């Protein structure tokens, strides 16, 4: 079993190297092209890094926020299944564990990219020197009012603590699960439940605050109380889509033979439901702002709907189309949720769609009208490659079936 797995791993690594090359080439070519364009633009009073560098840094941040969030969902999903005493999901548990392999490198990258962003203040406007000091040329009264929350020490401290929590609990659950494989017994299971419950409480707070920190504070003046949920919903549905896609690919490669249509059906229901949940949160945010039309709130949607010569408008509608209309209509019937091909199409659409969702959250405030796609796709492919590398490595490290999980039998006989 392990030898076959290692074979598959090698194959996947080969694929990833190819991916990396494509990503690397794209990104160099585009960077060179934009370096030239950026040089031409310098006369127009653009501050901060040259455009190509700024685009690179911002898109690193964008991809890292997306991938780290999706990765953490692996642990969150598993923790919820533990706390709910769920039996059906035992067979896909190892996929969840593998999904969260990116939490640690992603977390480290998060700090690193934030610090790189500090050099020219490319990502966060509030990090500009003097922006909180009265009398300074950069002074901004609104941002100064938020200095209690948005200051470097507290911000970085929070970031490290949150990532530490996520990484610790990911490792803890993984270790307990592996120990259970070796020793058996229900003692590990009960311990996992306690660990999961604690993690979920901490995650509820930390995911929300990290959404404000990492995404919302880019639009420093703007605020929305729905934002924590909005970002979480996006991460969550993409995480489930990633789990489903990985499960299907493993099954089609001949592993996870016990996974039946019933398991896929449940995953499909999760995706269907949480796509609607994402839309619900998105709409709750949009409608109140649209209806009240307060300038300080509406500016967010002004930028995205028709702002900057309308270049984000198509993305705005594309976002709704691919993340709501498409999964909603395709996954509506029972048969679609049980067919691998349908699920594959929808999971890929959801993953791309939510990548664009984050794109739409981050780009208008940082790049304004200078957004692009080629560097961003390149960076995304590099991230995807490294993500898959770590994920497949972790998949290969242990048996794909948690041998001594008390609910394993229930999961094997799961029908819906």
């Amino acid at each position, binding site marked *: 079993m392990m030898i076959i797995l290692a074979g598959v791993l090698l194959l996947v690594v080969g694929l990833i190297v190819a991916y990396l090359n494509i990503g690397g080439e794209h990104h160099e070519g585009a960077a060179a092209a934009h370096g030239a364009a950026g040089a031409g633009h310098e006369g127009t009073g653009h501050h901060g890094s040259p455009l190509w560098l700024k685009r690179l840094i911002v898109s690193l941040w964008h991809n890292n926020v997306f991938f780290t969030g999706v990765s953490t969902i692996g642990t969150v999903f598993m923790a919820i299944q533990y706390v709910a005493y769920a039996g059906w999901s035992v067979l896909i548990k190892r996929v969840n564990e593998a999904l969260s392999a990116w939490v640690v490198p992603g977390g480290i990258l998060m700090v690193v990219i934030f610090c790189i962003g500090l050099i020219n203040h490319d990502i966060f406007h509030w990090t500009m020197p003097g922006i909180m000091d009265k009398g300074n040329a950069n002074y901004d009264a609104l941002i100064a009012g938020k200095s209690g929350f948005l200051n470097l020490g507290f911000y970085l401290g929070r970031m490290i603590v949150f990532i530490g929590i996520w990484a610790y609990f990911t490792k803890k659950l993984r270790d307990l699960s592996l120990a259970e494989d070796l020793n058996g017994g229900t003692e590990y299971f009960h311990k996992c439940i306690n660990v999961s419950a604690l993690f979920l409480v901490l995650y509820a707070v930390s995911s929300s605050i990290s959404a404000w920190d990492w995404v919302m504070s880019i639009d420093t003046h703007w605020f929305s109380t729905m934002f924590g949920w909005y970002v979480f919903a996006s991460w969550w549905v993409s995480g489930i889509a990633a789990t489903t896609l990985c499960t299907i690919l493993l099954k089609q490669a001949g592993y996870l033979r016990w996974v039946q249509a019933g398991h896929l059906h449940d995953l499909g229901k999760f995706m269907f439901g949480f796509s609607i949940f994402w839309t619900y949160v998105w*709409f709750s945010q*949009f*409608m109140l702002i*649209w*209806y009240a*039309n307060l300038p300080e709130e509406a500016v967010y949607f002004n930028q995205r709907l028709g702002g900057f010569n309308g270049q984000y408008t198509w993305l705005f509608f594309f976002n709704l189309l691919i993340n709501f209309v498409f999964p909603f209509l395709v996954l*509506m019937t*029972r048969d679609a949720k049980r067919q691998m091909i349908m699920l594959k199409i929808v999971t890929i659409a959801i993953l791309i769609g939510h990548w664009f969702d984050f794109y739409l959250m981050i780009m208008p405030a940082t790049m304004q009208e200078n957004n692009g796609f080629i560097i961003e796709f390149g960076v995304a492919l590099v991230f995807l490659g490294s993500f898959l590398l770590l994920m497949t490595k972790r998949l290969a490290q242990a048996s794909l079936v948690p041998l001594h999980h008390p609910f394993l039998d229930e999961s094997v006989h799961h029908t819906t």
Partner: protein
Amino acid sequence: MTKRFALGIFEDEDVLLHAVENVREAGVKIYEVFTPFPIHGMDDALGIERSRLPIAAFFYGVIGLSFALWLQIYTLGFDWPMIIGGKPHIALPAFIPVSFELTVFFCCHGMVITFYTISKLYPRWKTPVLDVRSTDDKFVVAIELNEKTDLNHLTQLLRANGASEVNEKEMTKF
């Protein structure tokens, strides 16, 4: 319309489940099984096809959505246009919550009414129950009888499969 039934009374759901399978294998058509609680696997054992209720639900939803949109567009856009919050008369984002609610409303009421009508659970003066013990602790298998049915053979078959008693009952308006 009067119908005659043979009622096999069972004490245990596992026995019942196997009995249902065996009786159907023996070529006897089961009219219905009455149990105090839902039994896992009974639908498969009885060979009941998947319900077509979801299809009806979809159309109820479509009707609800159309009604909601018509209601809002006609009243706010044509019949009595008012300016609210500086928005256009037909302001679709503002209509979404009401449209959603009415879609769900039509959908669930339509489903409940359809389901009750089809399974004859609508309110009546006198509710026909084949054996009242099926609401307490007994499991009842009802097999419709006609002139050609061999009652003795049927009784033997049910007994052999664990029925504690087999009764015959006539029912009007069932």
